[in-house]
């Protein structure tokens, strides 16, 4: 626990706003920081548990490169929006909070899409319309409304990282299944990791096509329910 506390302390200078309140219960919020961080990965995983932001989950998971790029993008936008929104939460009138959130999120997405276009054009091209569509991803507005508008900058950062990593893990798991069965090999950023002998010559292309995405996610949801991870309706 000590080690955890130190690490969260080292991150403290980044958050300038709630420092006063923070020094008072440093120990408590240090452990809360980790709780919020871990929470997003399993207990409230945005994809498998909360079933939010499905559009990119189905569209982008045809290759692991796309999944990692999308995950990184969503983590960036979540961090930007959560940090900004929680630092202006006291100055934002309650009535106009949603438009304010939307503008903050749209600005972060614009930055993200300009950066991707400039530095990683192949990924920008293969993500296509789904990159600007991060702006209407319910996870981001959901976290802004449910968490960042009520909590300190530090906790909101932890929440953004946790939820973002949880989202990325879900994307990676689904894309691993789809890419391995659908192409018979695994390629990350243009480097081939392995090739399955029988499957790569006769891949089941169905799995990387749109209908395959629905099938894989449907079966995964049913399996997660059987295992008791996901709740029944």
């Amino acid at each position, binding site marked *: 626990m000590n080690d955890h506390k130190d690490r969260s302390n080292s991150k403290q200078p980044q958050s300038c706003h709630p420092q006063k309140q923070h020094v008072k219960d440093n120990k408590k919020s240090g452990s809360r920081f980790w709780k919020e961080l871990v929470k997003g990965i399993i207990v409230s995983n945005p994809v498998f548990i909360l079933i939010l932001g499905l*559009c990119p989950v189905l569209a982008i998971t045809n290759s692991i490169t796309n999944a990692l790029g999308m995950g990184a993008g969503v983590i960036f936008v979540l961090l930007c929006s959560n940090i900004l929104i929680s630092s202006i939460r006291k100055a934002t009138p309650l009535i106009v909070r*949603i438009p304010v959130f939307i503008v903050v999120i*749209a600005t972060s997405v614009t930055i993200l899409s*300009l950066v991707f276009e400039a530095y990683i054009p192949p990924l920008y091209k293969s993500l296509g319309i789904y990159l600007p569509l991060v702006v*209407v991803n*319910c996870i981001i507005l959901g976290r802004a409304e449910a968490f960042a508008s009520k909590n300190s900058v530090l906790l909101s950062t932890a929440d953004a990282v946790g939820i973002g990593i949880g989202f990325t893990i879900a994307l990676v798991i689904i894309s691993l299944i789809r890419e391995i069965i659908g192409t018979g090999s695994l390629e990350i950023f243009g480097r081939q990791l392995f090739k399955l002998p029988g499957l790569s010559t006769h891949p089941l292309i169905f799995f990387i096509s*749109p209908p395959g995405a*629905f099938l894989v996610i449907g079966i995964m949801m049913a399996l997660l329910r059987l295992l008791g991870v996901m709740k029944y309706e």
Partner: protein
Amino acid sequence: MNNLLTIFIAMVIINNMVLAKFLGLCSFFGVSKKLSDAFSMGIAVTLVMLIASVSTSVIYNYILVPYKVEFMNIVIFILVIASLVQIVEIVIKRTNIILYNAMGIYLPLITTNCIVMAIVLINSAENYSVLESIVNALGAGVGYTLVIIIMSGIREKLDLADSPKSMRGLPVAFLTAALLALAFVGFNGMV
């Protein structure tokens, strides 16, 4: 004219927004439990997409492009869509209370529906003119309504079926969508 027809047909069945592009899935699975709800949702989405496409393509073609600020499209489009939905809601409430009661709850939901934002972004990415944007939006709306109505018809029957406990609800809806999408793949290469 030929070009417009191609855009329309491609949008309705080949590049169907829901089954081929995975857009608007939240409402597709959320509102497809009853046929009448699905129909109202389809009409509401089509209406909002049409209005949004007209206004954003005018803004894009006559303001953003001449002043070379195309990179601002995400921020401007989402603000336009959000305020448009509010206006449409107020107008429908004042003029036609029956229509408002039928689709009232769905209108606010549409603001964050990715299908509206997507159609607007496609319009600007493809450099469509105002007329082409309208046809594109109409095609997407018809495609969405078609698919959500088919889906709700199937799901009404599916509720009576004796599926395994872990498959009930969303998982089996996803498998149904997979089969539907497979059927729509058959239209590939038509245009």
